[in-house]
């Protein structure tokens, strides 16, 4: 039976069915030792390259020239439900192309983990625009992973809202262009809590035990908690942040916090499983359509302002195309359409004036166009060194993952 033969061969291969003579044993162990040594030296030669390996530092003067080129094959990586796709169709028609718009970013770190090896080795990653949140954008700029923008191809950059024209990691917006901004504040259900909330510290009210979720991203959650502790989070040092994480840990140990989530806190909140969440402003506008009871507040102590930025990865194939696309989305008419769809804070001046004519309700929604009073209390993420950032991330991971 061939069946038996196969089995016997396997056995011989794996277990050496007929016992080992001394000579053969020596021979085998010699071969094994040789093999191990070879393996060892092969392994010793390998390593995982760091982010800065082929980094061109951002500090050097930026001069770029991206001449006119074909737009065919342009690819944009963005977050799910983060655009009005009709605007993309119009762009396609305008330029006679088909932009590959891929909703592939669900988490900054997960996406980064996917492409970091290629970036570190100085290879193209196949995307022409990626949309990343401030802290991740900062990392890419620092490591020299983005191509500078040729602003001659983006004349509409003049419509960029004045409060976003400069940011700590890219003071002149040489590499990044805001896509949408939003506030990290508190989303809650007044019917369940039985009272109006106004403070960050309401997250820790024992009456809501087991009914609170927080975001697992420390830049959002720890910084917001820090604001509640009376510290200006945008100037925070790592020691402050660790104190906030300690406070979160205590609340978790007490059973106050039900879960640490990504974007998926919305289900629990809408279903009423959770009463109070650390939440993103835009999500709540969309959730209110399903559950009108829900409310979002910019807490009195302040809230975190995040911006997701369009940027071009190094060695991209279509720099000109990417810039033309960015320019298109900085037309106030287009930006107004996107704002009406995604309900986040648009970085494009002039969009509000257009919405006032087409959709006055939205134009007056304080979550989409916050009042000046609220704007003053919006804090940018603190600038942390890579080492501090790692300390913060692993401290938070210890809280969320255990």
């Amino acid at each position, binding site marked *: 039976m061939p069946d038996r033969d196969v089995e016997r061969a396997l056995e011989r291969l794996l277990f050496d069915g007929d016992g080992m003579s001394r000579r053969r044993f020596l021979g085998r162990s010699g071969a094994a030792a040789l093999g191990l040594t070879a393996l060892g030296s092969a392994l010793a030669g390998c390593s995982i390259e760091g982010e800065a390996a082929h980094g061109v530092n951002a500090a050097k003067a930026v001069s770029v020239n991206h001449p006119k080129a074909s737009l065919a094959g342009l690819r944009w990586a963005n977050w799910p439900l983060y655009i009005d796709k009709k605007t993309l169709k119009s762009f396609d028609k305008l330029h006679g192309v088909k932009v590959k718009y891929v909703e592939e970013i669900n*988490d900054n770190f997960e996406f980064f983990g996917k492409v970091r090896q290629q970036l570190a080795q100085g290879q193209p990653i196949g995307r022409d625009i990626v949309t990343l949140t401030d802290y991740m954008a900062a990392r890419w700029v620092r490591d020299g992973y983005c191509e500078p923008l040729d602003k001659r191809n983006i004349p509409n950059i003049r419509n960029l809202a004045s409060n976003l024209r400069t940011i700590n990691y890219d003071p002149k917006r040489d590499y990044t262009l805001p896509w949408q901004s939003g506030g990290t504040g508190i989303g809650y259900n007044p019917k369940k809590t039985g009272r109006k909330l106004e403070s960050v510290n309401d997250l820790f009210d024992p009456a809501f035990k087991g009914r609170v979720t927080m975001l697992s991203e420390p830049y959002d959650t720890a910084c917001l908690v820090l604001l509640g502790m009376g510290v200006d989070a945008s100037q925070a040092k790592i020691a402050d942040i660790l104190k906030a994480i300690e406070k979160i840990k205590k609340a*978790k140990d007490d059973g106050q916090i039900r*879960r640490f989530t990504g974007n998926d806190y919305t*289900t629990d909140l809408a*279903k009423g*499983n959770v009463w109070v969440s650390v939440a993103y402003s835009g999500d709540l506008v969309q959730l209110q359509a399903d559950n009108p009871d829900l409310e979002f507040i910019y807490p009195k102590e302040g809230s975190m302002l995040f911006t997701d930025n369009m940027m071009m990865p190094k060695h991209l194939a279509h720099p000109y195309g990417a810039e033309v696309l960015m320019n298109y989305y900085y037309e106030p008419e287009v930006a107004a359409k996107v704002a009406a769809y995604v309900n986040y804070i648009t970085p494009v001046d002039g969009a509000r004036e257009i919405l006032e004519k087409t959709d006055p309700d939205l134009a007056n929604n304080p979550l989409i166009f916050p009042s000046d009073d609220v704007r003053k209390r919006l804090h940018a993420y603190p600038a942390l060194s*890579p080492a501090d950032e790692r300390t913060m*991330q692993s401290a938070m991971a210890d809280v969320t*993952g255990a």
Partner: protein
Amino acid sequence: MLRLSLRTRRTLLPYLFLGPGLLWLIVFYAIPLINQGGVSLMTGNPEQGYTLQWHFATYTDAISDYGTQFGRSVLFAGSATVLDLVIAFPLAYFIAYKAGRWKNFMLLLVVLPFFTSYVLRTVAWQLILNDNGWVVHRFQDVGLISSNGRLLASTKAVVAGITYNFLPFMVLPLYVSLEKIDRRLIEAATDLYASRATAFRKVTLPLALPGIFAGSLLTFIPACGDFINAALLGTPKQYMIGNVIQSKFLNILDYPTAAALSFILMTAILIGILIYARLLGTKSLTEAAA
């Protein structure tokens, strides 16, 4: 062309048959495994990169830091396996012996959940167990949980989720081994004045052991590494080792610790299986799988 004697050809033929499978194992199993073994001994950070330093302390650190999650994985996966066995045995027995012409249909029902994605099915449980849902209210009515209690985001929910998700892996091998049993053996036992219960205990159960063994392994091993159920139905207090590995690999980019944790998990499971095989008295793994 190379001319080989019949004998040589006969010896080589089986290796030829093994070739594709072995190649597959080497390329997609052995090499990645060796690679991860190397990674687990590296030190560094995402900024500067990781280099191989033969840093074995990563392993001891990983065990002392994440012992709780290891314990939880074994506990949850173990409970789910036992529950699965309790649920699956009567079901498999019924399908094998009593279902008659409905047999194939019932087997189809068992595998039907596989037509939907794993994550989606678990999310569905989030809705079923939600705090304001029917299930929770009925549990409260009969006093199984307090009026303010909940099912979701608890150990119960996680174990239930794992039990549900891995049930088919227990049913199918049990069904196969029960189906294979020669009915005449059971008849013979009753002919020899064994009661139905004794016949079951002395004949059916021992003959079904390979199925129990295979089913428990197919359930326990993947359940140990599972992180979906804990992430969706639990809280951080229910997180298992899979959750830690996932966040180390994907979010923190601490590859050495993640790789070390994976190796520890693999080794622990392997040792566990060997002990289990000894205890259950199955002579070899192949017998169980057959």
